[in-house]
């Protein structure tokens, strides 16, 4: 009986790992200290776990968490509220519709898949802020943020994959 309780508690803890990592990513990315003198835009660290587990374990990374992470990003980044919440949801909608295709990608293809999802989020945010300010904003800062995010994902995907294999694991019904 104790063994079952231990397994259950470990299961619950491991299920919290994706969201915890995403929250940590948002916190780190929005820490207002630049490691490169502010010349490079901070990456969307919170979006990486969101994308990864929205594909492989959507039961752990639900639309609610996409919304929650977006609101947290809005709160900490200092921008207008709701912008990243709506943008993360737009990217989640794309992932949700194309999950089979995105999950089947490997190598550079997997990176391109992530880049398309991140581009959806960035372009959505750009469009919303442009509409809110009723002016066409310079595109370079958003594209810089996208580029840094995609480059970092190249390394982050190995860490996320390792965490998924060792700690989170596939859904029980998938066995």
């Amino acid at each position: 009986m104790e063994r079952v309780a231990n397994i259950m508690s470990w299961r619950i803890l491991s299920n919290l790992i994706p969201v915890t990592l995403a929250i940590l990513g948002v916190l780190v990315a929005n820490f207002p200290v630049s490691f490169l003198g502010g010349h490079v835009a901070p990456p969307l660290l919170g979006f990486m776990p969101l994308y990864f587990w929205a594909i492989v374990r959507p039961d752990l990374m639900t639309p609610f968490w996409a919304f929650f992470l977006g609101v947290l990003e809005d709160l900490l980044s200092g921008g207008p509220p709701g912008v990243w919440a709506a943008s993360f949801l737009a990217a989640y909608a794309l992932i949700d519709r194309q999950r089979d295709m995105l999950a089947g990608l490997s190598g550079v293809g997997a990176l391109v898949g992530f880049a398309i999802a991140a581009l959806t989020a960035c372009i959505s945010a750009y469009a919303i802020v442009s509409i809110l300010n009723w002016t066409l904003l310079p595109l370079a800062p958003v594209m810089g943020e996208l580029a840094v995010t995609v480059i970092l994902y190249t390394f982050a995907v190995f860490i996320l994959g390792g965490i998924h294999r060792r700690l989170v694991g596939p859904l029980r019904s998938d066995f």
Partner: protein
Amino acid sequence: MANGSWKLGRPRGGAQLPLVLLAALAIALILIGKAQSNLFDRARANVTDWAAPALEVVRAPLSGLNRWMASVGDVFKVYQENLKLKEENARLRQWQNTAVVLDGRVKRYQLLLHAVPDPTLSSVMAQVIGRSNRPFLQTMILDAGKAQGVKPGQAVIDARGMIGRIFLTGDHTSWVILLTDLNSRVPVTIEPGNTQAIMAGDNTSAPTLDLLSQNVRLKPGDQVVTSGDGGLLPPGLAIGTVVADPAGGFRIVLLADSASSEDVNIVDFKLKAEAPPPVSANELPATAAGLPPAAPPPSAPPPTAALPPGITPPPQTKPATTPKPGAAPPVATPDETGNE
């Protein structure tokens, strides 16, 4: 990096309904944020106050690292830089002498003309404990807040010029909206010529200039200072230099470099409200021309016919007077204005 081996935990498209609901919620949040931004601002200020000690701990080694990284390339051009600085120093000494002489002359003229002296400025010194260079917001966080007397709207300057304005204050921290930020609008004066304009940030390093008059000729190199219009910012704070925009129009190259500023001053400026001069009956055009002052027209009964049945009109304390076109405005007696 292979995703091919991942097994899907849910059939495709299973999240459609929550997605739609949450998207509606996000749009509502955007609209609420547009109408009531102070709800989010208060939460941000609390988060920054809470994180301030951690920011101060992390800031010191990182700013040292940033300085070191920036200085690596400078080692190779120390000699050239030194020569250039010596030359610049000699030129600045000449300008300093000129400025001292002119300052004395201006003070003498002010004394002769009985001019109102410039308002004195008090300032709070603060350290930059955080910077955020996001695509849609360029800001910095200072370690001074309401407890130190910092208020939204105050100007933030460093040794070279203006950096931005305070837009959010916590108890011990405050957020600065940089001049380059998209939401920054500052009334400025361009010298020489005393040309008035609005400096508008657009998230690039050089803000744009919106001239208030079309018949103005600017040239690159003109100096831009705050105009003080609106009474929030003190006039004459150095901002930058006018440069031609290749895309048309003009931009401003800022004197201050917000990316390298460490210690800044928050300028407290409160212009005293200027009382309007009292109006006497003799100064009015009709009276001055020898005509009798225009009598107020007889008061018309309130229009009750348009009101719905059951609603009574509010009681009127004074008869409503509608000035006719061309008639002299009603004269305010000294008792009414309270000035005399």
